[in-house]
C-alpha cells in the first residue's frame, strides 16, 4: 500500500474539482474528500497489520532532498483527523452557495493535500514545503470568500500570511543549518546529529517561533481572532480544526526531538507560556461580542493547554496532547458550524443579537449544548480524556501547573455557558429560527457521535499513537 496514494487522491481531487465546474464542484470535492478518508482508513488497517508504511525516493541531489513519506501511529492519527474533517467540512458547506465554487472547493482539497503532506513528510524540506503550501489556499479562501469589509479583511489576511511566513522562514533557516550538519534532510539523519547546547537553543527557538505563530500561542496570537472572524466558516474550520494542529504536531515530531537538550533545559518556560495562554485566552473569551471571536479565543486557551502538555516531555503529556488535538479538532469544527448555522438564519455573529432560540429548535439547542459541554470537557466526552491526561501530566511536573491549567475547566465553563445563555436562552426571539436541515443535522450528529464514542472508548486511538510517541520520547530523552 503506497502511502503517497492519499496525497495523489487529494491532489487529483483538487484538479478534478476545479475542472468540474461550479455546479458539481461541491459534490466532487466531497467525493474525493471521502475517498481520501477511506484511503487513510485503509492505510490505518495496513498499519495495524504491522506493515511499514513509508515511501522514499531521491528528489534533489544537491542539496540532498528526498521525497520521503512515513506514516507512524501519530501521523496516521493526524491524517485521519485531516481527511475526515475535510470531508465533514466540505459537506457542512453544502448549505451555502459560493461564487466561483470550483476554485473554492479545489482550494479546500488542495489545502487538505498540503496538510496531509505535512503530517506524513519525514524529510525536513519536504515537510517545510507542504507546511508553506498549506498557507496559500487558506490565504485565498479567506481573501476572496471571506466576510466583512474588504479592507479589514485584507489587513487581517496579509498580517496572517506575513506573520506566519515570517515564523516559518526562521524554521527554514534552522533546517538549512541542521542540513549543513547532517548532509541530508531526512528526519532520522537529523536525529543523529549532536548539537551543542547553544545551537540547540537557537534551533529550538527558531522552530518555536514558527509553531508559536501557527498554533498560535500568546503573545503571537494577534492574527488569530481577526482571521477566524473574517474567514468564511469553512476557512475557519480548516484553520482551527486542522491547521493549528499542524503546529502542535510539529512540536512533537520536529521541535522536541531535534533539540532535546534545549527542550529539557527550558521546558518550564514553555509550559508557562502555554498555561498563560490558557488563562489569558479564557479571560479574553469571556467578554467577546462576536461568537466566532469568542470561539477563537477559546481555542487559544485550549491549544495553550495542549502545548503545555507537549512541553512536559512526558508520555502522558504527549499522549494527552494528541488526544486533545483530535478532540479539539472535532469540537471546534462543530462549534464553528453551529455559529454558521445561526448565521445562515439570523445573518449575525454578534451574540447580543441572538437569544431566545431554544424554544424554536430544541433539537439544535441540545446538539449545541452537547458541543459546549464537550468543549468544556465534561467527563465521558472525548475532550475530557485528553484534558485529563494533559492535566495529569502537568501535575506530575508540578501540582500548581495542573491547578493553573485546571482553571480552564472553571473559566471555560464560565464563558461557554455565558455565551450559550445569551445566544440560545431567554425570551423567545421575535425572528423565526428555522429548524436544522438534514445536512446540518447529519454533520452535527456525526461530530457529536465521534466525541461521545471516543469519550468512552479512547483505547483504539491510544493504542494507535502510543508506540510512535514512545519512540519520539526516546529521541527526546536520548543522551547527547
Amino acid at each position, binding site marked *: 500500500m503506497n502511502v503517497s496514494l492519499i496525497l495523489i487522491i487529494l491532489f487529483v481531487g483538487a484538479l478534478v474539482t476545479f475542472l468540474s465546474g461550479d455546479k458539481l464542484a461541491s459534490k466532487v470535492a466531497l467525493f474525493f474528500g471521502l475517498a481520501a478518508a477511506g484511503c487513510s482508513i485503509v492505510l490505518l488497517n495496513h498499519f495495524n497489520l504491522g506493515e511499514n508504511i513509508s515511501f522514499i525516493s531521491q528528489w534533489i541531489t544537491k542539496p540532498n532532498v528526498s521525497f520521503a513519506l512515513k506514516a507512524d501511529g501519530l501521523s496516521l492519527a493526524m491524517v485521519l483527523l485531516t481527511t475526515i474533517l475535510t470531508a465533514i467540512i466540505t459537506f457542512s458547506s453544502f448549505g451555502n452557495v459560493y461564487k466561483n465554487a470550483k476554485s473554492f472547493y479545489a482550494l479546500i482539497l488542495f489545502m487538505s493535500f498540503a496538510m496531509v503532506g505535512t503530517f506524513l513528510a519525514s524529510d525536513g524540506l519536504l515537510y517545510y514545503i507542504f507546511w508553506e503550501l498549506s498557507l496559500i489556499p487558506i490565504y485565498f479562501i479567506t481573501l476572496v470568500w471571506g466576510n466583512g469589509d474588504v479592507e479589514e479583511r485584507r489587513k487581517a489576511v496579509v498580517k496572517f500570511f506575513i506573520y506566519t511566513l515570517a515564523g516559518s522562514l526562521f524554521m527554514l533557516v534552522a533546517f538549512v543549518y541542521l542540513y549543513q550538519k547532517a548532509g541530508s534532510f531526512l528526519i532520522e539523519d537529523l536525529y543523529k546529529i549532536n548539537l551543542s547546547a547553544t545551537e540547540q537553543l537557537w534551533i529550538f527557538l527558531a522552530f518555536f517561533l514558527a509553531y508559536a505563530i501557527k498554533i498560535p500561542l500568546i503573545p503571537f496570537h494577534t492574527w488569530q481572532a481577526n482571521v477566524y472572524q473574517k474567514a468564511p466558516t469553512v476557512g475557519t474550520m480548516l484553520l482551527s480544526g486542522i491547521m493549528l494542529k499542524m503546529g502542535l504536531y510539529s512540536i512533537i515530531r520536529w521541535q522536541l526531538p531535534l533539540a532535546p537538550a534545549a527542550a529539557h533545559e527550558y521546558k518550564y518556560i514553555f509550559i508557562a507560556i502555554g498555561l498563560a495562554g490558557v488563562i489569558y485566552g479564557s479571560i479574553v473569551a*469571556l467578554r467577546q461580542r462576536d461568537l466566532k471571536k469568542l470561539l477563537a479565543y477559546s481555542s487559544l486557551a485550549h491549544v495553550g493547554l495542549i502545548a503545555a502538555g507537549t512541553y512536559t516531555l512526558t508520555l502522558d503529556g504527549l499522549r494527552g496532547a494528541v488526544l486533545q488535538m483530535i478532540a479539539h479538532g472535532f469540537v471546534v469544527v462543530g462549534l464553528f458550524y453551529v455559529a454558521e448555522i445561526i448565521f445562515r438564519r439570523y445573518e449575525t455573529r454578534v451574540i447580543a443579537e441572538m437569544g431566545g432560540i431554544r424554544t424554536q429548535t430544541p433539537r439544535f439547542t441540545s446538539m449545541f449544548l452537547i458541543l459546549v459541554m464537550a468543549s468544556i470537557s465534561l*467527563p465521558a466526552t472525548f475532550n475530557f480524556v485528553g484534558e485529563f491526561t494533559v492535566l495529569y501530566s502537568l501535575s506530575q511536573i508540578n*501540582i500548581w501547573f495542573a491547578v493553573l491549567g485546571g482553571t480552564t475547566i472553571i473559566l471555560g465553563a464560565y464563558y461557554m455557558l455565558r455565551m450559550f445563555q445569551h445566544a440560545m436562552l431567554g425570551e423567545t426571539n421575535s425572528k423565526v429560527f428555522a429548524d436544522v436541515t438534514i445536512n446540518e443535522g447529519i454533520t452535527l450528529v456525526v461530530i457529536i457521535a465521534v466525541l461521545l464514542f471516543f469519550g468512552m472508548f479512547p483505547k483504539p486511538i491510544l493504542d494507535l499513537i502510543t508506540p510512535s510517541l514512545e519512540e519520539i520520547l526516546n529521541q527526546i530523552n536520548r543522551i547527547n
Partner: protein
Amino acid sequence: MNTNLALLLLLAPFLGFLINVFFGKSLGKTVSGIIGTLAVSVSFAVTLYFFSQISASKQAIQIQLFDWIQISNFKVDFGFLLDQLSVLWLLFVTGIGSLIHLYSIRYMHDDEKVHSFFAYLNLFVFFMITLVIGSNLLVMFIGWEGVGLCSYLLIGFWYKNQDFNDAAKKAFIMNRIGDLGLLVGIFIVGMLFNTLDFTALKTIFLTGGIEDKVTMISVAAFALFIGACGKSAQIPLYTWLPDAMAGPTPVSALIHAATMVTAGIFMITRMNFLFDITPDVQAIIAVVGAVTALFAATIGLVQNDIKKVLAYSTVSQLGLMFLALGLGAYEVAVFHVITHAFFKACLFLGSGSVIHALGGEQDMRNMGGLKKAMPITFVTMLIASLAISGVPLFSGFFSKDEILLVAFHHNIPLWVIGSVASIMTAFYMFRLMFLTFFKEFRGTVEQKHHLHESPSLITIPLIVLAIFATVGGLISLPGNSWLNEYLTPILPKLANAEHHLGNTEYMLMAIAVIGGIVGIGLAYAKYIKQNSVPSTDAAITGFSKVLYNKYYIDEIYDAIIVKPINVLSVFFRDKVETSLSALVFGFGKVTNEISYQGKKLQTGSIGLYLFAFVIGLCAIVSYLFLAQ
C-alpha cells in the same frame, strides 16, 4: 448476571431519558411521566435485589466493563463497585427518586415541556447512579460532573427567565470550582498510589507503609474536600444552593436536598481511609461543617421565601453532616444523610404542594391558615418539621443527636455550635410551619378561592416520605445500630467501637430535646402568640437586614471575584489585544514609513546618482586599502 443487573440498574434511567428525549413530545405528558417514573423504579427494584444480596453475603460486588483511560503509570477502567455504601445510597437515591418522579407527574402537568423535564430527571438519576457505583474516582467523576450538568439543566428549566439561567450557570461554575479541587486530589492520589480504584486504594492504605507520603496525602485530602465543598454546598462554595431554588420544586427536593448535595459526604465516606490518616484536614472539615451549619441557620431564621428557608436549612444540615465527617464519625454522617433525605424531601414536596395550591406563591408573608385547606400536606410537613427539629422518636432526633454526641466527645465548642444551630433549625422550621399553616390566610382573594388540597399523586409521596421521616431513625438506634454493623466492611473501625449509653449521653439528649423545644417555643411565642408577620423587605433593619441579605456574601463574591474578572476581560479585549496587534502592525508601519522617506532619496537628478556612485567607489576602495 450481576453485570447485566448492574447495567440494567444503570441504563434503565438512561433508557427513560432517551425515550423521553426522542419520543417524549409525541407520547404526551402523562405517558412520558410514567415512563420516567418506571425507569427509576426499575433501578429501585434492582437496587433492592442487590441490597438483599449484599446484606446476606456481606460481599462487595466488583464489575469491570472495559479499559477507559490510559495513564503512563496506571490505567483507569470503567467498572462498578457495589458494596454496602453504594447500595445504601442507591436505595434512597432510586427510592426517593421514584417517589419524586411520581410526584412530578402531577406537579409538572401544567408545564409544556414535561417530557424534557422527565428526560433531565432520568438523566440525573443515571448520572447519580454512576457517581455512586463507580468503582474508581474517575468513573465517580463522570457521575459527579454529570449530576452537575443535570442540575444546571433543571435549575434553568424555565430558561426564558435569564435570572434562572444565571442561577443555573452559577451552580455549574461553583461546582466546577469544587471539581477542580477534586481533580487535583485525583491527580495526587494517582501520582502517589498508581491507581484510582477504591478497593485497591483501600488495600494499599490498610497494608500501610505510606507514612512517608502523609504530607502529600493530606494535600490530596484537602483537595478532595474542596470538591466536596462545591458539591455539598459548604462554606465558601455554598451560595449556589439557595439560588438553585429557581428550579422546579421536585428538582429542589431530589437534587438539592436528598441526593446530589450528599455526593460530597458520599465521596468522603468512600475515601474514609484516606481522611482518617490526615487529622488536620479532618479538623478543617469539622470546623467548616460546624461554621456552615450555624451560618446557614442564622440566615434561615429570617428568610421569607418558603423554599429559601428550606434551602438554607439544607445547607446547615449538610454542615452538621460535615461536622460528623470531620470528627471521623462517617456512619453518623451517613445516618443523618438518610434521615435528612426523607424529611427534607418531604418538606420540599410539601412546600411544593403549597406553592402548587397557591398558584406559584412562594412568599410566606402571603400564606397562612392553610391547615384547614390542605390537611395532608400540613400533617406530613409537620411530621417532617418535628423530625428535622430533633423532637424525640422522629428520625431526625436520633441522627442529629448522634452528631452532637460525637461532637461533644471530641470538642465542646463544636458541640455548642452544633446545638445552637439545631435550636435555630427548630425555630425557623416552626416559623415556617406557623406562618404557612396557622392563623388566617394573608394571600389575595382569588388565591383564597383556589385553595385546595393537592391531588393524590402529590400527596401519596408526601405520606410515604412522612412515614419514613418518622421511623427512619430505627435503622440506627443508639446502642444497637443496624446501620453501623451494616457499614462495618466500609468503616473497619466501627467493629471495635463500643456503644455504651452513659449518663452524659442521656444528659446530652435531654439538652438537645430541650433545645429543640425551646426553638419551637420561641417560634410559637413570636408567630402564634404575638401573631407577628415578617415585615416587608424595606422595613427590615439592623442585623436582621444583614441576615436577610445573607450577609451580603453574594455581593462580596461579586465584588471581589466576578467583577474583577470581567473588568480584566474587558481590559484585555480593548487594551491588551489592540496594543498587541498594533505592535505587530507597527513593524509594517515602520518599514512603510522608512520606505516613504527613502523615496525622497531618489530625486531623479543624475548628478546625485553619479555622486553616490563615486562616493561608493571611493568608500570601497579606501576601505579595502585600510583593511590591508
